[in-house]
């Protein structure tokens, strides 16, 4: 069974500072996703990472993937209040189709 672990589960950020969320998974995976979820809202896709060494950036968020270490990171640069949300990573395998999610990291950005 594919297990996905995120840490930290809660992250209080100060505006303007940099932070990283980590996502570890237990077995070989084909794709890794990062989602954002605002309270009471659905999951919004942020990034899809397909290969070892993949790096994607959008605004203040940058995601990377190390398939050998089975680790993905979501780096937040110069945090702003609008980034307050819960961030999930998820992995799947082409022969399984099922997305396995981490527990999520709840981010709060304070002034």
């Amino acid at each position, binding site marked *: 069974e594919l297990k996905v672990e995120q840490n930290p589960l809660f992250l209080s950020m100060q505006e303007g500072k940099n932070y990283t969320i980590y996502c570890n998974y237990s077995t070989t995976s084909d794709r890794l996703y990062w989602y954002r979820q605002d309270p009471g809202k659905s999951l919004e896709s942020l990034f899809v990472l397909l290969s070892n060494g993949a790096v994607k950036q959008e605004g203040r968020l940058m995601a990377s993937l190390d398939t050998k270490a089975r680790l993905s990171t979501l780096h937040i640069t110069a945090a702003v209040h609008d980034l307050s949300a819960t961030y999930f990573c998820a992995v799947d395998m082409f022969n399984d189709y*099922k997305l396995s999610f981490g527990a999520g990291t709840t981010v709060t950005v304070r002034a």
Partner: protein
Amino acid sequence: EAGVVQSPRYKIIEKKQPVAFWCNPISGHNTLYWYLQNLGQGPELLIRYENEEAVDDSQLPKDRFSAERLKGVDSTLKIQPAELGDSAVYLCASADDGYNEQFFGPGTRLTVL
């Protein structure tokens, strides 16, 4: 393009009552998923459809949960009877096929009293 539509958005029922959730996927998406999201956790797959066929229902508690996707478009998830532990958010997602990225609906928040 319209996203995945779910209704109702919120539902409060008493235990032992039946409840149903409805999902309309993105037009043209053949694959449809139902997920359960408990508070403070990531979504967990309940069932996956390819067109009208349930191809993975291994995580669906079949004693009280049922689902259907007649005509391979809209889908309904039912719980009968509901238990207190069923309180959660039920998410629907769709993809143009099972290999591709899933798009999620807003979810139905169920509270069982």
